């Protein structure tokens, strides 16, 4: 009986980490060998505003490894105009998906934003919630630990 519960529990963890093909398609996550760093943010989120310049800086270093890693931004603003204006203001140098119906973020269901998910082979390998002071270093460490 205990074994069955353990198997069900472990199974639920593994199942929870696998992303559905619809979501992967929507996010254009196609390369199984690539690590996708998905960052959820919003224009009204103060912590996201503080963290995004660090991600922009880190992406400049990441460009040489663009075959291995890719940063994808997901703007969860309900107003598309507000979201696009914010993205321009922040000078984002990575691909951004405008999740105006908030379906993507609802699927991932993070505890807070900004939220970063590391996706490889269609699975969430690691997640991080809340802003970090030196996000570049934090991502670098996370990528090493994957």
């Amino acid at each position: 009986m205990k074994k069955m519960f353990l198997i069900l529990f472990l199974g639920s963890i593994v199942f929870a980490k696998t992303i559905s093909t619809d979501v992967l398609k929507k996010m254009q996550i196609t390369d199984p060998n690539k690590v996708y760093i998905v960052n959820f943010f919003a224009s009204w989120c103060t912590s996201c505003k503080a963290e995004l310049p660090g991600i922009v800086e880190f992406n400049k270093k990441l460009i040489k490894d663009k075959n291995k890693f890719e940063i994808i931004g997901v703007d969860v603003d309900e107003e598309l105009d507000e979201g696009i204006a914010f993205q321009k203001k922040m000078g984002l140098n990575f691909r951004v998906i405008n999740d105006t119906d908030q379906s993507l973020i609802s699927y991932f269901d993070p505890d807070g934003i900004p939220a970063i998910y590391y996706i490889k082979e269609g699975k969430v390998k690691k997640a991080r919630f809340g802003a970090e002071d030196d996000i570049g270093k934090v991502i670098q460490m996370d990528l090493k630990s994957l």
Partner: protein
Amino acid sequence: MKKVLFLVIPFLITGCLHISDVKPWEKGTHAKETMKDAGIDKMRMKFDTHIYYSKEATKAGFGIAGGGCGCN
């Protein structure tokens, strides 16, 4: 009367159970300037705070820390 109350009260109680939590990404409207106590008028907020300070001889204790998005 008792029968009616017996039927109505469970409905009222369970009605409250349907209220779901506001998710972190659903707080966009809450974060707007117009949702603050004094609205978009920052001077009014300062004025209110000044009166509070004068009357109570104490400061702060307003609002919440952070960006309102459930993060650190």
